[in-house]
């Protein structure tokens, strides 16, 4: 009996050591991969696939499916081995933290995730996932988007139903007025973390000040502390009071506003306009393309790539990330760049002609950009979250 127990103990220790060795190997492989050419990576990826691996990846953006099939077409010897699964934003980190290292067949090798602060706290800080960024792109992708690696930016804009003309929103404080009650559509921020992060970003000193100025411009008097500590909290309170949560996804908001009542306005993912039926599309107008809004007309968030620490195909993951950051990958047929609202961090890739959109730089200052470091550094995250949650739940 003792022998059996000793043997089991030795086996368990060996497995633990192998586990940690494997995590180091993935990190080392990614380090090595970052300075390899795509041809060298392809050779390594072919070897991984030949040894039985397949790249399972989770993504919160459905376009990744098309990116994967284009990738397989470009690297035919990997065909059929890049397996995509769409995952809901809200449960991304519960799923990933539990599946990484579980040993379950087909658990993810990498993921394209939103909500950078959660990526950092739950995966990167705990060594459950690693960052990978190709050295060859260091000069064309701003340093802020290299660690963690951003593969695309996505914007959510104020878009409204124009069947009865313009809604005339020129200042964000208008959206807190009673006349907008039930006419503003926004996805539940307690279920959609990028929406939550947008509201949290408003509490930053920079946006609080901008909101106070916009308040003064709209009401003709300076904002004063009263029921709320800052102008940001007051705006969030007034805005959430008016929000209509009928639609549970950005696609539903887009199609619902397009086919619904005149004057309804939503803050939703710009690219979802592609899901609106052609006959309804003329019913929608992007507020920013009509006039500037004091002090923002939506928000911008990042989609990151991250490699799971237990992957058995780190080189394939690296090659796929290279692909997503490249012109062919990002701007290939029916890829992210073919739709409005997706922007590559690779500054050499611009938006194509003919789309009702503007380049990434255009949105700077007009939208609230998600800042991973600011949200991560918050000491009162708990308090802000509670403030939002009780207003959403009513």
């Amino acid at each position, binding site marked *: 009996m003792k022998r059996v127990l000793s043997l089991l103990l030795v086996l368990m220790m060996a497995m633990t050591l192998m586990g940690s060795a494997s995590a180091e190997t993935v990190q080392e492989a990614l380090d090595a991969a970052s300075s390899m050419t795509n041809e060298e990576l392809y050779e390594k990826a072919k070897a991984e696939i030949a040894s039985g691996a397949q790249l399972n990846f*989770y993504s919160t953006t*459905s376009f990744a499916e*098309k990116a994967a*099939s284009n990738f397989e077409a470009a690297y035919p010897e990997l065909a059929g081995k890049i397996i995509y*699964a*769409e*995952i*809901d934003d*809200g*449960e991304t*980190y*519960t*799923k990933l*933290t*539990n*599946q990484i*290292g*579980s*040993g*379950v067949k*087909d*658990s993810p090798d990498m993921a394209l995730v939103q909500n950078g*602060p*959660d990526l950092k*706290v*739950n995966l990167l800080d705990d060594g459950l996932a690693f960052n990978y960024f190709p050295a060859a792109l260091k000069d064309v992708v701003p340093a802020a988007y290299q660690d963690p690696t951003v593969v695309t930016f996505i914007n959510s804009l104020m878009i409204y139903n124009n069947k009865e003309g313009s809604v005339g929103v020129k200042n964000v404080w208008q959206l807190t007025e009673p006349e907008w009650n039930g006419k503003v*559509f926004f996805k539940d921020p*307690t*279920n959609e973390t990028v929406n939550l992060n947008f509201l949290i970003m408003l509490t930053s000193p920079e946006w609080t000040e901008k909101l106070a100025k916009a308040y003064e411009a709209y009401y003709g008097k300076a904002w004063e502390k009263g029921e709320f500590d800052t102008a940001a909290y007051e705006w969030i309170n007034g805005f959430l009071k008016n929000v*209509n*949560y*009928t*639609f*549970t*996804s*950005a*696609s*539903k908001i*887009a199609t*619902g506003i397009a*086919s*619904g*009542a005149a004057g*309804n306005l939503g803050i939703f993912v710009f690219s*979802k306009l*592609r*899901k609106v*039926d052609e*006959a*309804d599309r003329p019913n929608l107008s992007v507020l920013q393309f009509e006039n500037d809004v004091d002090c923002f007309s939506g928000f911008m968030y990042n989609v990151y790539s991250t490699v799971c620490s237990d992957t058995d195909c780190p080189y394939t993951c690296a090659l796929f990330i290279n692909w997503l950051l490249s012109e062919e990958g990002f701007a290939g047929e*029916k890829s992210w760049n073919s739709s409005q609202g997706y922007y590559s961090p690779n500054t050499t890739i611009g938006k194509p002609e003919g789309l009702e959109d503007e380049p990434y730089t255009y949105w700077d200052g007009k939208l609230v950009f998600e800042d991973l470091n600011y949200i991560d550094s918050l000491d009162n*995250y*708990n308090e802000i*979250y*509670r403030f939002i*949650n*009780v207003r*959403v*739940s*009513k």
Partner: protein
Amino acid sequence: MSTIQRDLRREPLRYRMKAFFAKPANLILLFFLIALVVLSLMPMVTMLTNMFTVHAGTEKKMLRVPVGSWTLNHFELLFADPEWSRSNFWTPLLNSLIVATGSGILGILIGGTVAWFITRSDLKCKKFISAVFVFPYMMPAWTLALFWTNMFQNSKVGGGVTGMVESLFGICMPEWFVFGLFPMIMVIGLHYSPFAYLLIGGILKNMDATLEESATILKASRFTIIRRVTIPIVMPAILSTFLLIFSSGFASYTVPVFLGSATRTFTLSTKMRALIQAGYEGQGYIMAFLSILLGTAILGINQYFTGKRKSFTTVSGKSGQVSLVKLRGANGIISAVLIVLTLFFAIMPLVSFALESVIKQAGNYSFSNMTLDFWIGTESSVFETGMPSGILMNGTMWWGLLRQVGLAVTVSLIVGTCGMLIGYACVRRRGTWLARAVENLAFFPYLMPAMAFGTIYLAVATSASFKWMYGSFFLLGLVASVKFLPFASRSGVNSMMQIAPEIEEAATIFGVPWVTRMSRILFPIQKSAIISGYLLPVINVMREVALFTLLVPYPRYLLTTMLFSFNETGYAQYGSAVTLLIIVIIILINSLVNKLTGASFDKGIGG
């Protein structure tokens, strides 16, 4: 001397053990006792500990302590913070109670009334009404919820999307009618009314008619007879039915999600999932635990009533001939109304889903707005919708269907076999503590709402020792097998009770091995009950959402969770197409069950 004493003490035990293990029934009971303790009770313990620990995600980020640390924060937030507590616990709890009570009453009113007409009156077209009336019970409850939305959403409520009623008749129903507590009560009540019909109808059908006849002779009016004779007799059945519908309504998850999201009308189940999804696992586990406590209490009360029912004799043998109440001139109208209503709720959902799966623009039902792209479209035609192809051309859908069918078959094999073995062993060892313990443990999962049960297993699969289970097919199979075991074990016990032990004993005397006795004697005798024990879990798995929603590795893993994801993320046409597909599959399986077992839901009640 001491050696002899020790041997004497040991010998009888050894023989007792040998005798104990020589009986297959004892071995089976012991096996299931261990298995059910491990699978039912131990996960509960894991869930209890999870109510006091910090989880990855939001909790870790908010509390800034390592995952797994002990905390009382979940309790503090859920119960001590007035605002949080009201919006995240008390209001959802109140809503759950309102929905459960309302649907219980409605289900009984509808089901009981139809049962009375079918069993106690000379209503026309009884067979047809009886057969069609049980149809909504076969369909998953959420299909009715989706149907309700498709029908009644309109330009005046929610997002202003036109539904069928507005499109066809120009009528706009108010918001309380379309979203919120009222439609939840209507849908759950309608879904469970066939259940009330079956239970109350069974009692009415077998009721001693002399009681009513005596009242008639004494010149009591028809209303007085119903009030003073009929209702008191069926009262235990009514109470029991009410509690069962109440319990199902309280635990319902999918209906409140589809009908409550728009107006932020949360129930305990939907809030539980919302909290878990938002990263508040600890609070979700507390709510799951409270749901289980409440479920146990309700079913305890039900057992009390059904136990009391033994004293209510409904079958006396004195009067087999029931004198039917003559509806006279009202017969035609009542029959027509019932036919229209039953057809509406049985057929219209199918028509509605078929239509919604082919229209491009919501609310526009003209032929020019129709396309089959959502079914058979290729990449070039459906790319804009965000899907790679129509659902019949989509590998993800076929994989989802394959996994769901695989899961249903696996679970049915496990549940059917276990139910039969438990039935056999419990009946053969009836009266022993072991048999009682196994029978009760096998029934234990029935007390837990599906969402809460899934939550328990989520707690297990996310613990360090069982991470290998998380997101696996194995976990789904396990959780479904335990959850659907109660009916199979009860059915196993009931069917085995009907077989006299002498039949098996005779074979034992002739030295026939146990396996042969089971396969050549017991199985053939109770063939149809056993087949039904195997096939019913297939239907359960094919329509289950709440149990799997937290456990699938990703939303499109199974067909039902895929449908749920489609509806949440705005793929309305794909959602309708998958719903239609699921309904058709369930109807086919149900027909198969009926054909193989000769049983049907309404058998024995309808005309």
